[in-house]
């Protein structure tokens, strides 16, 4: 790894099960962790977090250069790298509001249907609903 050349930058990888979407050295990434957004700079303490549905913001030179929507997943952070394993990822500009709304409807129905199921199923359905709502919010702008 060329440490000297990329001092102050962190390697960021975004992978979905189907392909590697993005691999770049960036200044800062903001990731939507389950318990609140996290900003990751180079030299961050190693951690593994769950993600909720939300937007990953990539900062470069003090500005947000890319916004990507993820519907959930995991993130592994080491001092050198930040790897996001997304369930599904789309650039925020390419989101389709209509499709996102359809997804919310589906998720709502699934959540209603799961009302009598056990807690784990209900929670999973709720997480999907939140993720779908986040997708609509992301598509709206």
């Amino acid at each position, binding site marked *: 790894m060329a440490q000297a050349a990329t001092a102050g930058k962190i390697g960021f990888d975004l992978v979905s099960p189907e392909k590697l979407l993005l691999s770049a050295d960036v200044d800062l990434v903001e990731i939507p962790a389950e318990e609140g957004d996290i900003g990751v700079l180079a030299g961050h303490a190693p951690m593994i977090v769950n993600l909720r549905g939300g937007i990953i913001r990539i900062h470069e030179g003090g500005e947000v250069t890319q916004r990507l929507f993820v519907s959930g997943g995991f993130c592994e952070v080491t001092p*050198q790298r930040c790897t996001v394993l997304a369930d599904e990822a789309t650039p925020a500009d390419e989101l389709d509001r209509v499709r996102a709304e359809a997804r919310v409807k589906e998720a709502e129905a699934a959540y209603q249907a799961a009302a009598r199921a056990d807690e784990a199923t209900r929670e999973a359905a709720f997480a999907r609903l939140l993720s779908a709502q986040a997708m609509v919010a992301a598509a709206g702008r």
Partner: protein
Amino acid sequence: MPSLKSLRLRITSVKSTQKITKAMKMVAAAKLRRAQAQAEAARPYATRMERMIGSLANSVRGLPGAPRLLAGTGKEEVHLLVAVTADRGLCGGFNTAINRATRNKARALIAAGKTVKILTVGRKGRDFLRREHGRLLVGHVDFVGKKVIGFADAEAIATQIADMLGKAEFDVCTLIYNRFKSVISQIVTEQQLVPMTVAEEGAEAKAATAAAATGPRATYEYEPSEEQILAQLLPRNLSVQIYRALLESAAGEQGARMSAMDSATRNAGEMIGKLTLTYNRTRQAMITKELIEIISGAEAV
């Protein structure tokens, strides 16, 4: 001796068969390239997933109440075999190899007094296994009419398996699929999905992280908690493993079809050669015979 006309007809028929097999080979080659690219693209996610699981699993494994997907049910009575075959034939021994492996494993397990359940993926597997082990089949998935296998397809299978595990319908789950080694060689592979085998993967993952971290292996912080992350990660990992097997199998299928069609084309070529030779000989013999008849007729006058 066959007549000239029937020989001519056979030659044309073999020629058109050859054209078809040749075309199928070309199609398989194109599809193979696509399948390989897809398998290639799926690799980064799988390797990173393995790394995370490796570091997590070792810290949770010893605990009581470890998730079922990781630790299994603690018994080994009911085995679920997931056989991955193609939906279509004409690809040499591709499907037969899987079917035979599944059948033999099922027989061996039954002989050892275990209960066996079979889940088939792909039409050819179901058609074959239904005959002997019809009562053991618990489910079937196929991709008939689908162009590309998406992650969602793998996820659906994984959910089905996880549901069955939740209801304790099996203790051990084994995936049987064709691993793509090269165009001419696919290897029947058995992979145990539940309980998960992390041991060697963990070692690999450790080596990978150690190399990446350029120093002693970092200890991770977990948010929310190890158990909660693992609870999400494990079903995901199951899907990823299945997805990978499906892609390997898809690439293998096209590879097998390509080489099968290649040898079929070659065989057709040989047959055309032989038939043409017989045709020419017969034609010559007839001409000679006619000449003899004319000459002997003229001499008699």
